[in-house]
């Protein structure tokens, strides 16, 4: 009894506490919020919002303004839901020099650009843990390519891109020695480097290639942005740990009042490459590519990179002092202003590209850092936003002269004007915002209609789901003078950076089916006539077709325990939204989800005799439940002949003599 009372009391207290909090946050939402985010059933959203999945390793796609989840695109992590990383065709996508890596931590996304605007061709994603960059095809919403990055310890300042997608960047957050050197950790200052890789993108195929790497002094390359317009040809990186500490960084990397923004003149780097000034270095990294015609990935080992040394090759890299441990390093739509967000600073410095160029020309330097000129802070400075908030992280732009900066510590978005560095408005976020996104906010032409906050802490925003909570995004209308919170929506993994693009740019180019006549898969069955089962030693290849509502062949005998059985399933459908699934009992694997016109392969090694049902896992028609079949597995060495078929051709029992 006493117990109950106590509990009731406690509950009451909780409710009281909560209702207080609700009142506070509730006040932020004003009357017409619902109509601004309501997208009626059957209507489309205005924007695609591509959100990094953080430690889920995937990219999620939301509709804005509704906040509806449209798709999760598997990128760096396996995805049993559609067989990514489980089917034989997709396994090579996750191959690395460390073998098959089924997971990664993805932080940032970059939509491809033409003339500084999102063009809707591709979106790039970084893998922070096992350094890689991925390219996702926005026609198919599939990962088309993954490139491993050598000489990187953690691919964080990535995959930011230049205004015509000439380069995708991969800068290491954890500096490490080049190659696979075995050195004492305490030799950081002598041996460790921060490598920035410039990845060239083929404008036709989208294929990536590491054009060159710049081996910067050992420090942490945190985030980066390409210049645009007048600053096109330059890349800017924020840095921390310019103290070059290798232990207790929390304290030891926060000693100096200023770290640096690294300004890289990549056009100059290109000249050095052309003039043969780089050093070819033996290394190893895998390059994985998806082929839409063979419906298969290949994984190729690359063994060389070209390394440029900025201490030796002059006029290529400059340092701008920036207070203090800067995180975001964002370039405004005009390309003139570079915003450094010092995590531990009480102000936001805004640098001017024109002034930076003048300082470099006039050699207004305050010294050198490891052989690289350091520009005088004041010489490059446009202005400082005073007392903006606590813990500035990232900045996006609305194209109307305003900047929006996220503040982690003070949990708010602050709007300020770039020209006179004055704070204009601030709104709270719930809670502890990390990245933020204005649709097109990193381009020359942002759609300054919304800003979306991606929060690190969710706490009481949704019904509780135990200790582990979804992280939350919040949508603000920024079309007026005052920012207005209009929607919360939960996200997968931990959303870091996200980008949003006008739905018009992508919508009509979305692929509906794969043309069966262009299917060049090695094991395709072009129609049921070509279905067959072929044994080669203990390998059994089953050329199978799927169409509403049967799998051919659906009776298979003469397979033995321990055989390696490959189900190559071709979906013969040519209609939009008719995938077929495939699963077989005991497969130590995932299902296949096969799109119309596609062929996918499931490997299965039966470990005991018996009859194994297989079936279609994706409800496809009124007779979906009937879309099933049987595999007979006999003891190893038995004399059951290999037979298969469907209907009239299904194997018949031999009449007893």
């Amino acid at each position, binding site marked *: 009894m006493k117990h109950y009372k106590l509990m009731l009391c406690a509950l009451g207290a909780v409710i009281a506490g909560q209702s207080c909090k609700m009142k506070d946050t509730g006040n932020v939402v004003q009357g017409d919020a*619902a*109509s601004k985010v*309501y*997208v*009626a*059933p*059957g*209507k*489309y*959203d*205005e924007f695609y919002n591509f959100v990094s999945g953080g430690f889920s390793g995937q990219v999620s796609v939301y509709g804005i303004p509704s906040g509806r989840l449209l798709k999760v695109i598997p990128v760096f992590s396996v995805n049993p839901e559609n067989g990514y990383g489980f089917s034989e065709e997709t396994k090579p996508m996750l191959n690395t020099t460390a073998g098959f890596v089924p997971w990664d931590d993805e932080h940032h996304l970059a939509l491809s650009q033409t003339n500084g605007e999102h063009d809707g061709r591709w979106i790039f994603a970084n893998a922070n843990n096992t350094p890689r960059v991925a390219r996702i095809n926005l026609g198919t919403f599939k990962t088309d390519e993954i490139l491993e990055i050598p000489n990187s310890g953690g691919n964080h300042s990535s995959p930011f891109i230049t205004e015509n997608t000439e380069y995708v960047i991969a800068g290491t957050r954890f500096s490490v020695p080049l190659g696979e050197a075995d050195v004492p950790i305490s030799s950081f200052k002598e041996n460790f480097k921060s490598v920035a890789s410039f990845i060239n993108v083929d404008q036709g195929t989208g294929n990536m290639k590491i054009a060159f790497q710049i081996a910067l002094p050992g420090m942490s390359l945190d985030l980066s942005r390409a210049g645009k317009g007048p600053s096109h040809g330059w890349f800017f990186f924020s840095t921390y740990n310019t103290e070059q500490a290798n232990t207790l960084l929390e304290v030891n990397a926060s000693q100096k009042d200023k770290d640096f923004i690294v300004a890289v003149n990549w056009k100059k780097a290109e000249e050095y490459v052309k003039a043969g000034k780089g050093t070819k270095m033996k290394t190893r990294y895998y390059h994985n590519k998806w082929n839409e015609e063979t419906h298969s990935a290949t994984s190729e080992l690359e063994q060389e990179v070209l390394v440029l040394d900025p201490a030796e090759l002059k006029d290529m890299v400059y340092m701008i002092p920036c207070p203090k441990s800067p995180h975001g390093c964002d370039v405004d739509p005009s390309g003139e202003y570079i915003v450094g967000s010092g995590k531990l600073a009480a102000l936001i410095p805004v640098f001017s590209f024109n002034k930076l160029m003048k300082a470099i020309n006039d050699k207004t330097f305050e010294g050198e850092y490891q052989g690289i000129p350091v520009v005088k802070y004041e010489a490059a400075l446009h202005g400082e936003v005073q007392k903006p908030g606590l813990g500035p992280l990232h900045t996006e732009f609305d194209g109307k002269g305003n900047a929006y900066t996220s503040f982690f510590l003070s949990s708010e978005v602050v709007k300020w004007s770039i020209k006179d560095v004055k704070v204009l408005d601030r709104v709270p976020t719930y809670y502890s915002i990390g990245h933020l996104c204005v649709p097109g906010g990193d381009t020359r032409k942002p759609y300054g209609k919304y800003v979306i906050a991606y929060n690190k802490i969710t706490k009481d925003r949704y019904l509780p789901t135990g200790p582990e909570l979804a992280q939350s995004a919040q949508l603000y209308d920024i079309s007026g003078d005052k920012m207005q919170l209009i929607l919360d929506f939960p996200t997968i993994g931990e959303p870091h950076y996200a980008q949003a693009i*006008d*739905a*018009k740019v992508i*919508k009509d180019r979305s692929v509906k*089916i794969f*043309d*069966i*006549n262009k299917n060049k898969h090695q094991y395709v069955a*072009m*129609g*049921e*006539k*070509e279905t067959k089962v072929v044994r080669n030693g203990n390998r059994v290849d089953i050329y199978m*077709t799927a*169409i*509403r*509502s*049967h799998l*051919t062949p659906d009776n298979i005998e003469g397979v033995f325990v321990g055989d390696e059985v490959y189900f190559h399933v071709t979906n*013969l*459908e*040519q*209609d939009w939204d*008719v995938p077929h699934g495939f699963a077989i009992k005991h497969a130590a694997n995932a299902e296949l989800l096969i799109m119309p016109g596609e062929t996918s392969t499931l490997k299965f090694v039966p470990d005991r005799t018996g009859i194994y049902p297989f079936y279609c896992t994706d409800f496809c*028609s*009124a*007779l979906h439940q009937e879309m099933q079949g049987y595999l007979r597995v006999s003891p190893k060495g038995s004399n059951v002949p290999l037979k298969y078929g469907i*209907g009239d051709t299904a194997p018949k029992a031999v009449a007893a003599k």
Partner: protein
Amino acid sequence: MNRKNMVVLMLSMSAFIYSCGGGGEEKSVRDQTPDPGKNEYVDPNKDVNPKGIGKFTNVELTHPLDVNMVKGGESVYDVKCSSCHKLTDEKLVGPGWKGVTDRRQPEWVMNFVTNVDEMLDKDAEAKAMMEVCMVRMPNQNLTDAEARNILEFMRKNDGKN
């Protein structure tokens, strides 16, 4: 109660805003979306057009059969049709093809294989077949030429010349 009214009010307000939206500005995708539920009611007892519904209103038949078209039709059949249709009169998933060119007008066949969904929704004959087969024929995305080839292959299968 109050709250409910509010929601209703807000919903109707938003509906109002939507129907008026767009004005002079460039239309966003949000406004372009087709209205759901515009399926027209088609009276199944109304005069049935033996040519079906679709763009083919007059198909010229060739005599003798065009050998190349027959060949093209057969390869389309192998990949896209044979899973469900036999060349005899035996029903598999769909009806066997024997005699189809006697049962159907050439235009009906070509409209059906190229305009599957509308035919299955509206054409009385196609709807009747669906009640027999209980599976919607998949739209196999045939080009006009492929559809014509299929027709020629069916004619061959029926012994026409």
